């Protein structure tokens, strides 16, 4: 069960960005999880409340986008979906394949909330 440690890194990374913006809370987080990532989205959802408890992310809304596994043909450069074609290029039939996406576990964005300090701080854009 490595989801726990990956999620702890996720919290750390999100907090780091939020602090740079002098945010008080993170109210939402969007993740991208590749279909060939060893991270299981259901576990992420299950663990999220516990992992974020007492952090800036407590109570944040979690959204997860799955990234399909895409493969590039080494012979003709066609990019195709692994789930549909397996490792056989639909254009030329070659089985020489390279995985180009579907392995990621990324933070796409966070939504932060901060108190507007009525100007003077120079922090807001």
């Amino acid at each position, binding site marked *: 069960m*490595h989801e726990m440690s990956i999620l702890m*890194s996720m919290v750390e990374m999100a907090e780091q960005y939020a602090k740079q913006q002098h945010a008080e809370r993170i109210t939402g987080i969007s993740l991208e999880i590749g279909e060939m990532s060893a991270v299981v989205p259901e576990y992420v959802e299950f663990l999220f409340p516990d992992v974020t408890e007492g952090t800036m992310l407590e109570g944040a809304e979690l959204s997860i986008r799955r990234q399909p596994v895409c493969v590039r043909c080494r012979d003709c450069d066609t990019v195709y979906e692994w789930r549909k074609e397996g490792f056989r290029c639909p254009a030329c039939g070659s089985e020489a394949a390279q995985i180009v996406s579907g392995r*990621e576990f990324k933070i796409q964005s*966070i939504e932060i909330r901060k108190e507007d300090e009525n100007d003077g701080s120079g922090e807001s854009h």
Partner: protein
Amino acid sequence: MMDQVKVIEIQKSVLENNDQEAEKLRQKLRKEKTFLLNLMSSPGAGKTSCILRILEHLKAEMQIGVMEADIDSSVDAEKVAQSGVEAIQLHTGGMCHLDAAMTEQGIHQLDTERLDLVILENVGNLVCPAEFDTGASKNAMILSIPEGDDKPLKYPLMFSVVDLVLINKIDCLDYFEFDMQAVKERIHTLNPQAVILEVSARTGEGFDRVAEWFRKNVNQWRKES
């Protein structure tokens, strides 16, 4: 006062920190001229037995250390230590893989500056270890005959990140329906550069060629540093 809500684009891999740690460790080992091999497989494929065979071939000609990662127990490290090679046990404390930070701790403990080769036996698992860069110079995995020839289809990521695949337990090839040709084609489809060697840790067959692979890669690593 009003609350202000704002969306910040990040678009960054959560594993980026691990990747950076791993790269740092690789640079350190490059300077020390220490070659680190990360060895992965499912449980029972024969990681420890293969390591013992590799040590037999190489321990007279280079300084070797072994790091055994397991969730618990130290049986593997004890077995290796009996062969006269320095071994330490890393406990992952329930974790299913090693990350760069844990590997670094082991490297520190082993005092690698005087070593030419360190073999890291990762936790038995074909899924998660493929995901985490340990900082190794090269990655290897073992596929054993009883596991079946369809493993590359089921665990494509693992087979696509390794430099060397050992197909172990070839002494029992007659008892299993294992299509050697098909498995090699499946591996090369995912990973055309992978070197595939057939071995038997039980009989010792094929380990002269494994030892050759190590000599070549350890030398190459030294030259690059």
